[in-house]
């Protein structure tokens, strides 16, 4: 008897799966992104994922030397860079390259001073109006949460499988694909003046940003290849860290919690079996 309700639930689910695949083709207009993001094998994916600190440091370098010209990263402070494996002295040195506004002082004046680790990393523009004017009206998005704020829909049935495979790297995969995905617009496709064709872009066929990276524009001192592909991976990983610095802590704590719950559930199961055995007599 107790099998009946689950069986019914299963039947309902099966019927629904059939229906879901049936209606998947029903959408009319063109779907963006045109191409699904490429999958990268990230060090931080999966249940045991951890940051590759070397990669994060390289990613910060790419950000600082290229992206930071237009993109801010407001939620990240210099002190947070210590989590990338930079020493205290290195963090201080990085901060010291920046000026931040402080004040008012005792005379009521605002003044500029050298940044310290406690300061947030200053962005390239004073405000979003200035950012818009400098970029033909398109404000370059802040990097702090971009790796979590851009995730192309996975669609049915992928989103169901993602639960089991723990696929949660849609954001960095998207950023990597976008950075490496610029190409010539196909024959016959009109794209607006001043935009750049990229089939991986989430909101249309083309975006305002031109391909920002190319082979050799950032020098690495750890021997990693100085290629577009490597830069894109590194900066995507860095952006994932910026979006969720606690990711590795989450996974390592999660592992311990899940093991505990698993053992606890086995013990409870055995206890329950024992308790209910008394009923069978």
């Amino acid at each position, binding site marked *: 008897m107790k099998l*009946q*309700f689950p069986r019914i*639930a299963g039947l309902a689910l099966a019927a629904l799966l059939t229906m879901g695949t049936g209606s998947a083709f029903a959408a009319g207009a063109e779907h963006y992104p045109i191409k699904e993001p490429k999958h990268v094998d990230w060090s931080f994916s999966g*249940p045991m994922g951890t940051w590759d600190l070397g990669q994060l440091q390289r990613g910060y370098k790419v950000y600082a030397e290229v992206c930071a010209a237009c993109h801010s990263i407001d939620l990240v402070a210099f002190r947070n860079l210590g989590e990338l494996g930079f020493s205290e002295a290195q963090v201080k040195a990085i901060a010291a390259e920046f000026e931040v506004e402080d004040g008012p002082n005792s005379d009521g004046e605002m003044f500029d001073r050298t940044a310290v680790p406690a300061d947030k990393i200053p962005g390239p523009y004073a405000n979003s109006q200035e950012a818009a004017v400098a970029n033909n009206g398109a404000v370059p998005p802040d990097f702090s949460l971009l790796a979590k*704020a851009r995730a192309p829909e996975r669609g049915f049935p992928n989103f169901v499988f993602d639960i089991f495979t723990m696929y949660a790297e849609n954001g960095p995969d998207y950023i990597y694909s976008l950075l490496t995905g610029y190409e010539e617009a196909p024959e016959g496709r009109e794209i607006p003046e001043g935009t750049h064709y990229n089939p991986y872009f989430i909101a249309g066929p083309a975006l305002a940003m031109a391909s920002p990276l190319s082979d050799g524009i950032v020098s690495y001192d750890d021997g990693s290849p100085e290629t577009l592909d490597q830069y894109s991976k590194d900066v995507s990983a860095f952006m994932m860290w910026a979006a969720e610095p606690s990711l590795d802590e989450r996974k390592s704590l999660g592992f311990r919690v899940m093991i505990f*719950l698993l053992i606890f559930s086995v013990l*409870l199961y055995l206890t329950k079996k024992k308790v209910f055995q008394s*009923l069978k007599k």
Partner: protein
Amino acid sequence: MSGGHSEYVPGNGFSKWLDSRLPLPRMVYDSFIAYPVPRNLNSWYTFGAILMVMLVVMILTGVTLAMHYAASTELAFQSVEHIERDVNYGWLIRGIHANGASMFFIAVYIHMFRGMYYGSYKEPREVLWILGVLIFLLMMATAFMGYVLPWGQMSFWGATVITGFFSAIPLIGEGIQQWLLGGFAVDNATLNRFFSLHYLLPFMIAGVVILHVWALHVTGQTNPTGVEVKNMRKETVPFTPFATIKDALAIVIFLLFFGWFVFYLPDFLGHPDNYIPADPLKTPAHIVPEWYFLPFYAILRAITFNIGIPFTDIVLIDSKLGGVIAMFASIAVMFFLPWLDTSKVRSGNYRPMFKICFILFAIACVALGYLGSRPAEGIYTILSQFFTAYYFAHFLIILPILGRIEKPDELPPSIADAVLDEPAKAGRGRASSPQPAE
């Protein structure tokens, strides 16, 4: 309590003293230790306890989050990120709270479908059911307002769309909407009152939960056979240790499922756009509510036509108002379920036609959920209308008629006949095979 008399014996001097002044230990003993439960409850009956745990988890994490959250349009988004980044274990507390809302709804939907399948709403448990629907309504209000608090794009635009419903009410709608929002649009005043109400409603839920459990303990639980307990000694077991250990196991297994999302897929159930700060000048391409509202959202959008007097141009109910009415009706109809289902047989196990209708109803609900996540255009709208019609037909046409025309399978004379190794004379098939309680 349904046992009629209390078996509590105060153990020492103090508990004797207290028992004659405030018999709280007696109540706990009678409700959670000696309370008799049918011996044939299956695992689907553990979701009540799971929901109880979820409510406590949500209140505890919520109170903690409120210590660090700032309910102001200028600060809300950043304060949530401050919790994620700078508060000790803030990422964990917020992860539990945000995913906990989804887990709460998963559990409540299973709990409701279980009640619908086993006819748990039937006499004498109508009030128990109605209190449950009331809890569900309060949960929806709480979850909706909670989703607004992080002040991301979906928070803001979701709030704008949902509160826009009220403007559909003729004549007074605009006034009500402005009164609710505290202004002409969703803004600081709205965020502040939503925060206040989001903090208040869970305690109201807790209050109704107490009534819900009280009502349950007056009537006693149903069981998969739907046959009432006839022989207390043979057919029931004491809540402790039997139900206690079973609920504990179910809770821990549910926590494993919960933990899977909190630790490995914390953003799976959310929307990426909510990591973009709210911007009143930029509408997202698709405004989608949280998954647990999608079936109701689909019903709202299914009404794309005006309802008027035929052959004239007079519109009585325009499509917007029609959608809002349909959506509220889809929940309101559940209050009347005990009287809409005319069958005398309680459990779906003995109702062959109901079983099929129940599957179709469940499919319609999940299909509406899927359609609610799609843009409201083309085939999606037509399917939404079809399933909306079926949803209401299930309550208003199928259930009333089914009770009259359906020939139910023979019921076991008692729970003991159904589940004990005693000669099961009349029962048929699985229903009568020996089935110890899980």
